[in-house]
């Protein structure tokens, strides 16, 4: 009997290796050579959003769970990092003009006289690095477990995540003595004694960021090509069938949601490091929805598309708002509509439909889910 080709299940197909190579070259070689320090730092900031977009590919594209609260995880990761940096910047020496030296300045302004207990672990860098990933992931686990075990999905889930984002924003703003309030945690200086504000530090952070992003792409790729990836697709399609094939559907959804949260958290931490502050404006609804559109523009089923989509939308945002600030919202709104109506598979879809077939020596697109199903993704 002839063995069918599906039996080889390589980690990545040649085309995917090539895509990864191109992306890595773009991020790590081309952009650093082509852009000045300022623009490169900007790209670095955009790339932190790509982590969120990447998570959404797994969670939304593959698993059909649309979360409109990814900013929560981005923000939590960023806040964990910012708390560490703030404590370092608030040494007794730096803050001796305060009534209580050694605590962050905003606490002093709010008559907080001792460091709150939940800030204490952030004196330690290893604990901070663990918390950056663990806190948002745990939070995602709690929300996910509560929702998915009770079969909440689709639009309900989207709206509830939105509410969670709104609540967290109000909480952070309201508890300004502990969180820095609406101003956020600002004026961050050093990471374990290393000044993150210098130009050389910024370029090093850029490369660290790029490296982490590629690592996350590889992790996502591993998940996607594993049986788990196919189960996610299967679930989006026929949830009951998966359930009656003996899988606990909720666990798989929780996993996808937690993975997306962990990616977003890493992005948030890198954001804090590169931009130098964290504020509640990333936790809210608007940034969360914007991050969804990065994924949609890139193609919700394409890991590489997510990165390109993020870069493209942000580049457009920056250049548009420099030249025609009034038109930017029209443009962004139209982009949302166009991507949904005309290009549901985003850039990746356009590439597969129009570019790839014309490349020399390319066979038909693979059988993997390259096209968005006609039906609703997991209702």
């Amino acid at each position: 009997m002839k063995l069918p080709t599906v039996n080889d299940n390589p980690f990545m197909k040649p085309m995917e290796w090539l895509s990864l190579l191109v992306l890595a070259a773009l991020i790590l070689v081309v952009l650093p050579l082509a852009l000045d320090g300022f623009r490169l730092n900007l790209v670095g900031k955009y790339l932190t959003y790509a982590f969120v977009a990447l998570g959404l590919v797994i969670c939304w594209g593959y698993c059909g769970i649309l979360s409109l609260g990814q900013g929560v995880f981005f923000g939590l990761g960023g806040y964990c990092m910012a708390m560490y940096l703030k404590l370092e910047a608030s040494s007794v020496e730096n803050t001796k003009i305060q009534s209580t030296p050694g605590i962050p300045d905003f606490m002093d302004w709010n008559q907080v006289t001792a460091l709150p207990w939940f800030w204490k672990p952030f004196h330690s860098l290893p604990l901070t690095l663990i918390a950056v990933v663990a806190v948002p992931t745990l939070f995602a686990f709690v929300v996910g477990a509560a929702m998915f075990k009770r079969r909440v999905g689709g639009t309900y889930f989207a709206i509830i995540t939105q509410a969670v984002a709104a609540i967290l924003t109000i909480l952070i703003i309201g508890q300004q003595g502990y969180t820095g309030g609406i101003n956020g945690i600002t004026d961050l200086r050093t990471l374990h004694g290393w000044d993150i504000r210098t130009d050389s530090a910024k370029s090093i952070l850029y490369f660290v960021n790029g490296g982490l992003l590629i690592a996350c792409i590889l992790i996502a790729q591993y998940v996607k090509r594993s049986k788990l990836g196919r189960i996610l697709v299967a679930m989006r399609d026929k949830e009951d069938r998966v359930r009656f094939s003996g899988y606990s559907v909720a666990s798989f959804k929780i996993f996808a949601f937690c993975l997306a949260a962990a990616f977003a958290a890493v992005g948030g931490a890198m954001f804090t490091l590169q931009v130098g502050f964290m504020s509640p404006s990333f936790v809210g609804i608007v940034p969360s929805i914007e991050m969804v559109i990065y994924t949609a523009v890139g193609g919700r089923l394409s890991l590489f598309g997510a990165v390109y989509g993020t870069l493209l939308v942000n580049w457009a945002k920056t250049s548009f708002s420099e030249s025609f600030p009034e038109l930017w919202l029209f443009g962004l709104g139209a982009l949302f509509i166009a991507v949904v109506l005309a290009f549901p598979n985003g850039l990746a879809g356009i590439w597969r439909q129009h570019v790839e077939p014309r490349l020399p020596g390319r066979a038909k697109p693979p059988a993997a889910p390259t096209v968005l199903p006609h039906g609703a993704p997991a209702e």
Partner: protein
Amino acid sequence: MFGDYSLGDLGSIFVMQGFAGLILFSVYVLMALGLAIIFGQMGVINMAHGEFMILGAYVTYLCSGFFQAHLPGLFPAYFFVAMGLAFLASGALGMLVEWALIRHLYKRPLDTLLATWGLSLILQQAYRSIFGAREVGVELPAWMMGSVQATDTIEIPINGLFVMGVTVLITLAVALLLFASRWGKQVRAVMQNRVMAGAVGIDTDRVDRTTFGIGCGIAGIAGAAFTMIGSTGPTSGQLYIVDTFLIVVFGGAASLLGTIASAFSISQTQSTLEFFLSGSTAKVLTLLGVVAILMLRPQGLFTLKVRR
């Protein structure tokens, strides 16, 4: 906290606080009704709901300007005209949007969410381009501001009474439409079995369009009514949107009664908490409570248990 006050004072405060709760309840029902119809009957999440409301508010603003300039004698009554026009304007825009956008996406509910979000951005910028970035002040007829002096110490705001009145009327009208009119039967038929409804000769496209239009039109009326109590600016719609969604989801999307019950429980909780705690804390506690209950009972408070 009540030690220093006389019994009479306390009594009046409780009465007025009761009214505050009822006003909040009416506001919530008005906000949520249009959305509930669209979400409940069509399964579509309209993220631009707030912008449809603000369209109604801007229509009221234009009307007020027009009456002041051309028909000053009729100014005291202009508000009723404004509400009618607000309904028509938002409804017409809603039908246009349904035709251009929503009808292509019925099978992808999550995508309607994104598309309507895009629409809301466009509408916000359009308002900003047309009316300016600043909030506009809507001048109201004098009789609508001020309060009714029920007793020496009990004062009931007229605009609150007005909002309550509008809410009751609209709710009744919607209930009548849904449960007694031909359109209502068609809507329910389409909701239960689209294919079958089409097969028995119901023009499902038209039913969808009307439903969406009516939902948006009610949002327009709500917007007109809210000029009495809130602000009218390009982004004012965003202030209402999360609350509105939560009410609808909390109520269990499919039922009108659920929406009303959910608006009632949320508004009473919030209004009571606001009285005893600080405003910000009250809001957080209310939202947390809603989310906690949704975690335990995600299908909403008031849905029927149905066979799948």
